[in-house]
């Protein structure tokens, strides 16, 4: 702004000055003439003074070196030629006036090629008049000019006595330089000022448009174009002068003839001048101009390469609304126009000298970011495993070549390679060949290969950063794995992958917000994904350590695993069906092509919680729901059931376990000795020292080993199996199958306990039948003998079916005995059963585990009868509400918790739980704080909610409640007789019997330790010993142990002396 105004002002002032003084012609060399001063003595006006010459920095040495030819010979020619210049140089003969002659010639030449000193506004040199209209022509003819030029150029030869001569070309260059600095640079900045109103505001959005993106680009385009026009005009001016000089040189050369070369190569001069000027322009280009250039370039290259402008490479998804980058088709008009425009622009830039090193660096940067943008934009989240055809090809490939091989290339890689070759490289070639026209093929084939490997590297980085999501989306993300397998070729990338994936695990999975089920489920997919990625499992080994470490803190992990394995056949069927229905839309979608956003999420697992750390999961519950209820997914009961199932059970494990492919395990020796294995490959370089190649992905084996020792797993399995065998007596096919599979994995011996358990259950059926039959016989006989037997027992025996399961104590885990009193008829049954059993197997005695059974209870209430399957505890509690004495029709039976406690001698917690159970069933209702009454009518139940205590007792009816007919099992254990089973002492409220027992056992350990190992021990050592010696593990922390020991000290059973514990001396 200011610069333009200033230069306009300067121009006007100059015009006024010139009109007054007519200085235009008399000052041909206003800036760079050797000197303007008073002439020395004996010299005419205008002669340069010797000492001052060098002040301007043009070497006077140039002419003397150039004109190294024979001076005499030259003189003769010049003499002849000088006749022509007679009118202008009459005093040529006088030797002393050589200098004057030179000065005059110099004047003529410089006046001709002088730049318009006042050049200011755009148009003042924006249009250059053609030669014929040149103002100089008014007073100097071409002839004069060329004569003068000859004199100036050949001064040493023609005017040997002229002491101060100069190189006219250098002068011109100097003049152009200062002209550029004084006039063009202000104009250029004027262009910027006018157009780029708010350069600061848009600085941050270098590659990113703001709101006015279109305007923005256009504005910068205008800046660039006006700058280019300005520069073009200025250069035209400079080259015009040069052109005149060069033409003169040619004429001289022609006139001199081939025998006497001029000694000046006009071509060389022109090239050098051009180079100088280009360097000048290139170096003086302001950063703002380069910024505009880069913005324009970004836009144009983006269009050509098919990357939508304003695509945000940093925040994937945030600008996802715009379309994904895709290579433009051949008939894309936009791309063609942009290409055309770019070509012109680059040529123009090259012409004005802006296509120098800075431009090339800029271009390289832009292309670099374009590649990144394209890769992230086009392939982020595109994991679709092509179609089934190539998918099966991929798996076939996997089984053949077990490591990452580039033999199979995924569609992503193919399309990326194509893009690099046909678009990226082509553009580079076009631009670079325009920038440096001389160079032979600026983009070689090897360069294309380099570009492609660079692009693959980008793709690898992208996939690595996405790996966690890929894992979650398994198996719909197989395509992404193909990409990874093909691109992860170096150790460094493998390292990068494991590091980045471990980090993602830490931030997104291994935190308290994720349930163990989710972690395990993810772990399964991690195992499968990484196995698909790298069959050697080395990658898996690198990432899973942190996962394993974390899972060890989750106490429920093993249990979830085991229950998952033991999923029932029914659950399996549901899950399979769900998987199949869910697979269909996925296939359809992936066939639809590059619609990666939808593919982001497979149908796989339940809701996944991740904290909002970093680039967390962008899946909102809303979208999830939408996906679940897509019409293709056939929303139905099956799916709902499956989803419920998958949110509670690790059903995948059972699926895997039943998958015949999984159970195939080759013995390792076979592999080592298989000399014919043509697909053998060496172990990966980053494999550990004692690395063993696994054969299959072996999800279950990996999971089990991840959760610690096999022993822990087997133990947990036994306890879960025990629960299931006791609760679900009818059918244990699934258990048997799992047991068989586990036997194959762990060996027969390890699973022996479970075998015994199942055998117990089977045997007890036989025994049960036998005993019942025998007793029936006996009972019938008895009934005959005493027909009027005890009413209750007779009735009970008639109606009650009593079954028992006989368990071998040593092989069943967790069989604690809870003491409570069973209803009398049941006790009778037990006694009879016991005697029956002893009749069958003499010398053995039954110990009843009353709390483990089930009962079917039929309740006859006043207005309804209810049949409920419940546990023995619950049955016992409801039996206590039967009141044979209460014949009062108007009151329902009430019991308080204390009464029940006294009557049943049952643990209060169990009583409370059973009462809650019956209240939930609507059989009982709570009338006071801990008093419960039978809800004889449903109305009473309903009213109970509105706490109408009065109403409860009002309706009169018989307490016609009968204990259930089929009081089915009570558990018992076969007891060899020598079983000093320990019972925990008085138990404080809250601590379960198991925990109590455990504490007692730990105390034994501590006593044993302090008695035998060492009389005094510090806490740390004790904790260490406990951890080492207790085979099931010692879960307490040091603090917990300290607390425990503190209790013992308070009880006087322990002393602490000097930080060490010891037993008090007796």
């Amino acid at each position, binding site marked *: 702004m200011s610069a333009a105004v200033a230069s306009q002002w300067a121009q006007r002032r100059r015009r006024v000055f010139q009109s007054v003084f007519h200085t235009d012609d008399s000052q041909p060399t206003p800036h760079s003439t050797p000197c303007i001063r008073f002439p020395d003595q004996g010299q005419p006006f205008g002669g340069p003074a010797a000492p001052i010459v060098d002040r301007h920095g043009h070497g006077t040495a140039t002419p003397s070196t150039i004109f190294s030819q024979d001076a005499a010979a030259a003189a003769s020619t010049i003499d002849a030629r000088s006749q022509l210049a007679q009118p202008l140089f009459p005093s040529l003969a006088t030797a002393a006036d050589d200098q004057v002659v030179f000065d005059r010639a110099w004047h003529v030449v410089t006046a001709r090629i002088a730049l318009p000193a006042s050049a200011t506004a755009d148009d003042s040199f924006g249009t250059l008049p053609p030669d014929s209209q040149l103002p100089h022509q008014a007073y100097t003819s071409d002839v004069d000019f060329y004569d003068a030029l000859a004199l100036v150029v050949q001064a040493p030869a023609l005017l040997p006595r002229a002491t101060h001569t100069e190189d006219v070309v250098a002068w011109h260059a100097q003049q152009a330089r200062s002209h550029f600095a004084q006039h063009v640079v202000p104009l250029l900045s004027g262009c910027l000022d006018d157009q780029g109103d708010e350069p600061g505001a848009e600085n941050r959005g270098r590659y990113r448009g703001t709101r006015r993106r279109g305007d923005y680009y256009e504005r910068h385009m205008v800046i660039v174009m006006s700058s280019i026009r300005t520069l073009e005009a200025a250069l035209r001016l400079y080259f015009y002068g040069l052109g005149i000089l060069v033409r003169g040189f040619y004429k001289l050369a022609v006139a001199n003839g081939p025998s006497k070369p001029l000694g000046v190569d006009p071509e060389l001069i022109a090239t050098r001048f051009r180079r100088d000027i280009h360097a000048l322009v290139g170096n003086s280009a302001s950063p703002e101009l380069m910024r505009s250039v880069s913005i324009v370039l970004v836009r144009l290259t983006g269009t050509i390469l098919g990357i939508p402008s304003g695509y945000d490479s940093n925040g994937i998804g945030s600008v996802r609304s715009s379309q994904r980058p895709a290579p433009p088709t051949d008939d894309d008009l936009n791309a063609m126009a942009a290409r055309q425009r770019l070509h012109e622009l680059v040529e123009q830039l090259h012409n004005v000298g802006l296509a120098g090193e800075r431009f090339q660096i800029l271009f390289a940067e832009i292309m670099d970011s374009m590649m990144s943008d394209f890769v992230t934009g086009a392939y982020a989240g595109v994991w679709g495993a092509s179609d089934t055809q190539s998918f099966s090809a991929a798996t076939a490939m996997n089984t053949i070549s077990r490591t990452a091989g580039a033999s199979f290339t995924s569609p992503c890689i193919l399309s990326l390679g194509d893009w690099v070759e046909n678009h990226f490289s082509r553009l580079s070639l076009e631009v670079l060949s325009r920038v440096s026209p001389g160079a032979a093929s600026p983009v070689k084939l090897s360069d294309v290969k380099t570009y492609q490997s660079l692009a693959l590297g980008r793709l690898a980085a992208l996939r690595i950063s996405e790996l966690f999501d890929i894992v979650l989306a398994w198996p719909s993300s197989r395509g992404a794995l193909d990409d990874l397998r093909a691109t992860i070729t170096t150790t460094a990338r493998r390292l990068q992958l494991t590091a980045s994936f471990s980090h993602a695990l830490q931030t997104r999975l291994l935190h308290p917000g994720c349930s163990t089920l989710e972690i395990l489920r993810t772990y399964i997919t991690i195992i499968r994904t990484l196995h698909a990625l790298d069959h050697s499992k080395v990658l898996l080994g690198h990432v899973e350590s942190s996962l394993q470490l974390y899972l060890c803190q989750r106490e429920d992990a093993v249990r979830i695993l085991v229950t998952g394995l033991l999923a029932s056949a029914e659950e399996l069927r549901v899950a399979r069906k769900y998987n199949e229905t869910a697979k269909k839309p996925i296939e359809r979608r992936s066939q639809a092509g590059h619609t990666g956003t939808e593919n982001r999420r497979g149908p796989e697992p339940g809701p996944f919680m991740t904290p909002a750390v970093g680039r967390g999961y962008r899946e909102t519950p809303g979208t999830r729901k939408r996906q679940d209820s897509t019409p293709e997914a056939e929303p139905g009961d099956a799916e709902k059931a499956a989803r419920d199932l998958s949110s509670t059970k690790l059903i995948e494990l059972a699926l895997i376990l039943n998958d015949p492919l999984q159970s195939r395990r080759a013995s390792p020796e076979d592999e080592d*000795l298989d000399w014919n294995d043509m697909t053998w490959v060496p172990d990966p370089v980053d494999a550990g020292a004692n690395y063993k190649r696994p054969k299959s992905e072996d999800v279950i084996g990996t999971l089990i080993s991840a959760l610690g020792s096999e022993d822990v797993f087997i133990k947990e399995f036994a306890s879960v199996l025990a629960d299931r065998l006791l609760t679900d007596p009818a059918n244990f096919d699934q258990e048997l199958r799992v047991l068989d599979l586990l036997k194959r994995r762990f060996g027969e011996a390890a699973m022996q306990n479970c075998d015994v358990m199942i055998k117990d259950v089977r045997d007890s059926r036989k025994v049960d039948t036998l005993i019942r039959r025998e007793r029936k016989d006996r009972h019938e006989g008895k009934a005959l003998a005493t027909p009027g037997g005890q009413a209750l027992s007779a009735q009970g025996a008639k109606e009650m079916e009593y079954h028992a399961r006989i368990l071998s104590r040593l092989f069943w885990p967790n069989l604690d005995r809870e003491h409570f009193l069973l209803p009398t008829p049941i006790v009778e049954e037990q006694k009879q059963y016991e005697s029956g059993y002893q009749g069958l197997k003499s010398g053995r005695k039954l110990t009843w585990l009353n709390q483990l059974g089930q009962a079917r209870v039929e309740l006859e209430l006043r207005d309804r009868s209810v049949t409920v399957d419940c546990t023995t505890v619950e049955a016992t509690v409801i039996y206590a509400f039967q009141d044979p004495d209460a014949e009062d029709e108007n009151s329902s039976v009430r019991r308080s918790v204390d009464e029940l406690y006294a009557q049943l001698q049952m643990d209060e917690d169990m009583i409370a739980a059973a009462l809650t159970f019956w209240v939930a069933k609507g059989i009982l209702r709570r009338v006071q704080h801990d008093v419960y009454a039978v809800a004889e009518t449903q109305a009473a139940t309903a009213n109970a909610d509105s706490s109408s205590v009065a109403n409860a007792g009002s309706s009169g009816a018989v307490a016609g409640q009968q204990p259930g007919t089929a009081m089915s099992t009570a558990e018992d254990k076969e007891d060899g007789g020598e079983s*000093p089973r*320990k019972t925990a002492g008085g138990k404080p409220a809250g601590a379960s019997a198991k925990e109590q027992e455990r504490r007692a*056992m730990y105390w*034994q*350990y501590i*006593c*044993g*330790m302090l*008695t*035998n*190992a*060492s*009389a005094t*021990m510090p806490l740390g*050592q004790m904790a*260490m*010993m406990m951890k*080492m*010696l*207790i*085979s099931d593990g010692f879960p307490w922390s040091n603090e917990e142990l300290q607390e425990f020991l503190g209790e013992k000290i308070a009880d006087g059973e322990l002393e602490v002396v000097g930080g060490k514990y010891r037993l008090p001396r007796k």
Partner: protein
Amino acid sequence: MSYSMEDSQNSAPGSLQATKLAGARKGPDGQNAVKRLQTELMQLMTSPAPGVSAFPSADGNLLSWRATIEGPDDTPYSGLTFKLSFEFPSNYPYAPPTVLFITPIYHPNVDFSGRICLDILKDKWTAAYNIQTVLLSLQSLLGEPNNASPLNGEAAELWDKDPSQFKAKVMDRHKDVDED
């Protein structure tokens, strides 16, 4: 089979195979011994026998144990406690542990350095024995020494002839060892 042939090309055949076999037997058994001892410890802790107790030594080596026996009532050793050390071989329970009295004891079948003469710790050992049975045997040995094969002849004589002097000798010899 194939590997042994392969290896035998490189070294003396017999010795190598022998060491290999020995190693092969020893490796898993050493682990088994530890496992077995852990189980025994668990048994001892969950169902302790009165008057005897045992525990691995404080250095954390499961193959080295310390045990305590209380002298049975109605014997000269009544009211005294005796410490013993158990050293288990790596093929335990197929070989007996080495048992020594650490507490000095005056007993016909125990010598002055604590070595014990008990058949089940020598040739009568079977894998069915365990620490608890050994300790109970030793406890009963205190009350019923086997005077037929004494290590301490004087004690064997006194046991029969002069119980009171025997008792005095026992009390004289007994000394509570205070470890570390």
